[in-house]
């Protein structure tokens, strides 16, 4: 068991926990997106560590990282689009005032 792999996995796990806290505790849409970014950053760290220390000869592992980076970019684009629309309609991106979006 290599300590570097474990160090990376611990970092990913803690980033994931901090991101979960941020996404659940914040009331502002942009801050919630920051929490989601941290969750995905934790996933990225784990993916790179798995590729590097367990299967460095399989480059599909790096493709996973690129896919998660794509998800991060898409989340930002759609999130900011929703934020602009919400701000234009209601003058605020506070999610506590967004009960009308409830399904």
């Amino acid at each position, binding site marked *: *068991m*290599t*300590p*570097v*792999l*474990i*160090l*990376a996995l*611990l*970092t990913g*796990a*803690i*980033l*994931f*926990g*901090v*991101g*979960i*806290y941020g996404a*659940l*505790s*914040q*009331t*502002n849409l*942009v*801050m919630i997106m*920051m*929490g989601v*970014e*941290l969750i995905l*950053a*934790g996933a990225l*760290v784990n993916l*790179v560590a798995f590729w*590097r*220390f*367990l299967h460095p000869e399989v*480059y*599909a592992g*790096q*493709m996973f*990282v690129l896919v998660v*980076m*794509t998800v*991060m*970019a*898409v989340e*930002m*684009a*759609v999130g*900011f*689009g*929703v*934020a*602009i629309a919400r*701000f234009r309609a209601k003058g*605020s*991106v*506070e999610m*506590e005032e967004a009960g009308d979006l409830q399904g």
Partner: protein
Amino acid sequence: MVAQAFFVGVFGLAAIGFGVAVFRTASMVRSALALLFSQAAVGCMFLAMQAEFLGVLQIMMMATEMSIMAIFMVMFMMDPGGLGGMDMSHQKRFSIGAGAIAATTAISVALFSDWGPIFAEAPDAAMQTRELGFEMLDRSMLIFETAAITILTAMIAATAVAIPVRQPGVDTGKLDKENGDKEQEASK
């Protein structure tokens, strides 16, 4: 290996520290900058783990993303400088509990799993980039193309959502002015 462990540990601590700082500062600009530094530290971790291409990509992408996020913060927040000391959080105990449980579960899996044989050596940077290129244009081409189309779709969708809804033959500028006048009259 010792140097690698040292740098992965240092950058990991930096990533976690800046990640926590995102939700501890009252200033939204500082939050965005803290997230930028956290993501940059994650990119440096990739470099320390000898994934050079991914590390550089992460740092470049996140620097751009977080700069845009800082601009949005200033645009949309009621108190972007944090001078009013507003608390913009809720259900704190539940959130801390959920975050702690998630982190503890992931840490337990990391510590108590048998990860099998570990590779000490990684392919060199030029070989990695070459092989990743072949991977993207060969076996993973469908995934690569799907990711590209997804980003394009998201860009179009985000722009479409952000553009104000216009009724045919109605100038929204005039409409906004009329609505404003009506509100002013109602307030009188």
